[in-house]
């Protein structure tokens, strides 16, 4: 009743509010999507005297990834090439996969031995196992009675 009365005047505050709400939602949705998560996502695993880092790197070959270790930092670098259609007449329907250069620095809980690093890469999953140097490991001290 009330609404139809407003409609006759040519202004419906509820309709206007809904329209504004929709517009606001659309704008805010665009803003949040702009902040893309870090690539590649990593997981960190702690062991006895070692630490393992796993990362999701789909589409990359082992030769595309650069791994460097220094003291207690691990640097993961590389480039993910953009897919090419190989034909000018082709049309993109969707482009959701990210590409470009990436670099991530991971701070490890302790200094690692650069000689004792094992890296494996299978099915787009990278796994790096790093060990604590022998000299840095905690030593048990005997107390003399």
């Amino acid at each position, binding site marked *: 009743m009330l609404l139809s009365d407003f409609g006759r005047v040519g202004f419906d505050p509820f309709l206007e509010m809904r329209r504004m709400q929709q517009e606001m939602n659309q704008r805010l949705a*665009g803003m949040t999507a702009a902040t893309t998560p*870090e690539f590649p996502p990593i997981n*960190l695993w*702690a062991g*006895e005297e070692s630490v393992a880092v796993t990362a999701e790197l*789909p*589409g990359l*070959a082992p030769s595309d990834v650069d791994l460097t270790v220094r003291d207690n930092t691990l640097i993961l670098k590389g480039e993910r090439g953009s897919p090419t259609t190989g034909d000018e007449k082709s049309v993109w329907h969707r482009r959701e*996969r990210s590409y470009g250069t990436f670099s991530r620095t991971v701070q490890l809980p302790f200094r690692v031995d650069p000689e004792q690093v094992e890296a494996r890469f299978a*099915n787009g999953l990278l796994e790096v196992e790093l060990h604590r140097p022998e000299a840095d490991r905690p030593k048990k001290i005997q107390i003399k009675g």
Partner: protein
Amino acid sequence: MAQELKTTERQVPSKLDGNERTRSRPVFVPRADIYETEDNVVLLVDMPGVASDGVDITLEKRTLAIRGYTADQPHENYRQVYAEYASGDYERVFTLSEDIDRDGIEASQKNGVLRLVLPKAAPAKARKIQLKMA
């Protein structure tokens, strides 16, 4: 488009036909690139951790379903201290607009990326009908 991207992030797809899965693992919607050339429709789907024997693709009428199953990777003597991603299976369903030549479909899984080439079916050729003179 931006909204689309957000929904394809780490999220469980809606139950497609009201069924439930028997495996209790997270299911993700994988990110995909799709392009169309003159003869083919090509899909590139990111499914890290999926080996070539873990991919399951079905095409029923125009519905293309892609599923990827990851093998459990045990980390013995390790405990997880920080996580940015979770491991799980992948599932995504597309509805194709073109008629696809089912026999010519090629699929390959390499480095955790599925590449699916769907050749378009040749359009039915127009036939000219000759009139016979009486």
